[in-house]
């Protein structure tokens, strides 16, 4: 199974996971990494390391909050340096997490990354416009 780590500023990551688990039930190998104000790159790297080690799996996707932000940047350094196969997808949203949890058993890491991007994008809709079209 491919591990999923959601990483973000504040409590964003643990909150999104708590909502996801209220929708899909408790999930294995799904962990949050929260970065609090004042915590630097080192703290985040240690947390990612600890979470990945605890999962005891060789493949993981980190879904981080925003491209170019310090959390995403540190996740990238981490992914490039760790022994495990780790991919990073930025701009995490609820549809993205639901998508990866649904498919992580049936696809490989590269495909899961592309499904994450696709799921995240496709969850963004002009909902009123969509409703009008369907009328």
């Amino acid at each position, binding site marked *: 199974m491919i591990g999923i780590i959601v990483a973000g500023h504040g409590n964003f990551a643990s909150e999104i996971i708590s909502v996801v688990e*209220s*929708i*899909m*039930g*408790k*999930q294995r190998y799904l962990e949050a990494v929260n970065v609090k104000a004042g915590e630097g790159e080192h703290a985040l790297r240690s947390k990612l390391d600890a979470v990945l080690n605890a999962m005891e799996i060789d493949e993981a996707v980190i879904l981080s909050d925003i491209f170019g932000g310090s959390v995403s940047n540190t996740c990238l350094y981490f992914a490039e340096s760790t022994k495990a196969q780790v991919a990073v997808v930025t701009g995490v949203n609820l*549809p993205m997490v*639901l*998508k990866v949890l*649904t*498919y992580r058993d*049936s696809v490989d890491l590269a495909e899961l990354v592309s*499904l994450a991007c696709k*799921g995240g994008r*496709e*969850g963004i*809709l002009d909902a009123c416009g*969509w*409703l009008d079209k*369907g*009328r």
Partner: protein
Amino acid sequence: MIELLRIDDKLIHAQVIWGWIRALKASCIIVANDEAAHDELRKKVLIMAVQGLGLVGEGTQPCIPTVRILSLKEAVGILERLCGSCQERTILVVSKPADAVFLVENGVSIKSVSVGWMSFFPGKKRILETVSVDDEDVKAFCELMSRGIGVMYQASPSDIGLDMVDYI
């Protein structure tokens, strides 16, 4: 076949779409609810919520279930015909236990009932995280149980079901 009768006053929402439809590989969802059946906007939104599954969940499950939003009476008529030979894997959703009793009393054959959401409002008592009941609800649950129908609380398919008899 009715794979699941769910009591859920949100009717169709993320838990149903991402949890139950997938877990049961449902090909049909029937919402039996008098208010929704007469509310064109609500019908449209509920149907689109499931069609959204195609946008956010195609791939290993390319089939989007068909959705029918019916009044309780219409549902009875259709379910009677469906239950016999139908191959559809159906999820039936009602908003309250009394509606489940109505279906059963009118000949819809159900072995068990799964309780998801029954929202709190003044006059109801909260008995589980997502379940609040009043006297009418408790009476309806007892009626279902007295007919040998198991009533379980199970919000998501991966949750362990709790027997409602211990909570009402």
